């Protein structure tokens, strides 16, 4: 995985934190805005988002509810249109749902009528990809995620953490350029979450997929991300982008170290000064 990161010069920050990477750009946001026209007049969900994500990066986006982070994910997935600025993926401006993508939602969103393996293979069926090679890959991913004994189980027989693992395998099986995760661990208990953090990191190191990880957990964001985009609400905007210069693979114990605490402390300070905390 490309650990080197790039930060595009940003209005609020200035060019001082710019760091170059030789990886080509996958996602490019230039002054992206999103305004909803509600009954009480226009609501600015996102204001002037500038963000460049190179291929292979794991980018965390952290912020409180209402900071527009899910809106950002919907825009990147092409499920909603920008109302200002320019958003491009692989150099192309989106005007239809992005399909070179895997999405993991907060709720695992499994098909209750399909077994674990068939849920992962849904991705392959709908895309009309050749079944055999992708079936092998699905089995591979599921066994990496510790689900080899549950291939024929139905979702109703699985725990919350296992369901989310299935949905992660489904999001990766077709080797998408971009993995979008919308608060994937927020419905899970703390221990399941820690375990998934570790497994997710291992998987991303192996897959080298570019990942946009939306979360409201400062710890998860810093633990997993190459960079952390810190967002503040009303209007939703980027307060700061922080490089996490910690070696991988990162063990869970890293979270108790002073270096890690420095990063999470910085993020917390941003929220405090923005009046979020």
């Amino acid at each position, binding site marked *: 995985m490309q650990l080197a990161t790039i930060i595009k010069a940003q209005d609020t920050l200035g060019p001082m934190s710019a760091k170059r990477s030789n990886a080509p750009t996958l996602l490019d946001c230039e002054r992206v805005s999103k305004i909803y026209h509600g009954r009480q007049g226009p609501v600015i969900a996102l204001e002037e988002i500038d963000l460049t994500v190179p291929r292979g990066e794991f980018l965390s986006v952290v912020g409180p509810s209402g900071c527009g982070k899910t809106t950002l994910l*919907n825009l990147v*997935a092409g*499920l909603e249109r920008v109302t200002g600025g320019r958003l491009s993926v692989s150099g192309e401006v989106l005007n239809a*749902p*992005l*399909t070179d*993508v*895997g*999405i993991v*939602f*907060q*709720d695992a*969103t499994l*098909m*209750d*009528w*399909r077994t674990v393996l068939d849920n992962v293979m*849904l*991705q392959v*069926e*709908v*895309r009309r990809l050749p079944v055999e090679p992708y079936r092998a890959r699905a089995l591979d991913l599921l066994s990496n995620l*510790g689900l*080899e*004994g*549950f291939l024929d*189980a*139905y*979702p*109703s*027989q*699985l*725990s*919350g*953490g*296992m369901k989310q693992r299935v949905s992660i395998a489904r999001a990766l099986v077709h080797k998408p350029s971009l993995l979008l995760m919308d608060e994937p661990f927020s419905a899970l208990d703390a221990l399941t979450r820690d375990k998934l953090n570790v497994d997710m990191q291992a998987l991303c190191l192996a897959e080298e997929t570019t990942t946009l990880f939306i979360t409201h957990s400062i710890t998860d964001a810093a633990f997993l991300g190459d960079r952390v985009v810190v967002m503040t609400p009303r209007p939703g905007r980027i307060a700061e982008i922080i490089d996490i210069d910690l070696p991988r693979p990162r063990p869970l114990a890293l979270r108790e170290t002073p270096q890690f605490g420095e990063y999470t402390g910085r993020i917390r300070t941003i929220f405090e000064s923005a009046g979020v905390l």
Partner: protein
Amino acid sequence: MGQALQRNDGAGAPAKARGTRRRARLSERVGDIAYPVGTIVAILVIWEIACRQFDIPAYLLPPPSSVLATIVARYDLLAMHTLVTTGEILVGFLLSIVVGVVLALLITSFRPVERAIYPLLVISQAVPKVAIAPLFIVWLGFGWEPKVLVAVLIAFFPIVVDLVAGIRSVPSSMRKLALSMGANAYVTLYKFLIPHALPHLFAGLKVGVTLAVSGAIIGEFVGADRGLGYLLLFANGQMDTNLLFAAIVVLSVIGVVLFYLLLLIEAWLLPWHQTQQSPEN
């Protein structure tokens, strides 16, 4: 969420759990049959004893034994009328599935259709079907058509309402997922929306099938020269309460058999849903 299998159980545990679960389900099945059958037998026994003990005249309330004797003695007559009515019920029910499913798909796919049709659907249910059945006789004559039409008119409604509710209950994340996979409208419908809505559809079908029985009988009451509804009125006119009860018994059996056939089809089509409903979850 119920009983989640633990991850560290290993591969052997699910198989073992499935074995004990199957045994539990079997005993549950036996109970499902034994309890209602026991209740019915008890009622019949009390009924029989009461009829004999208090000398209730047969034209008021014949004892079960004499109703059974009537069913055996007039088997041919009952079979002929049963065939007619069952045909009307089945045709009516199948048509109401077609009508109900098509309407539900139109309503959930096109907003203008929903706004145009939905109020009419509600109005169509507010009109008492017994009241318009004579009109169908005028239009369609005394054959099977008006009976089927009444059956459809009553039975399609719960099918539409439940299927619409089922498709509406598809979570937005599932629709987003379909879009991200590049699924077109057709694939979205048959890989995502319809399977998700199937349990709701079956809830509507179960209500619909019993209503189709009522619909066919109402149609026969209004104007017919055959069918169990006709037989009921005929027996009534003859003060033949034994035959009246015999017809009622046959009608109930038709309703129960159709209902349980649906349950079987449901269990076969939705094994995943049955496991969710099983009591140990």
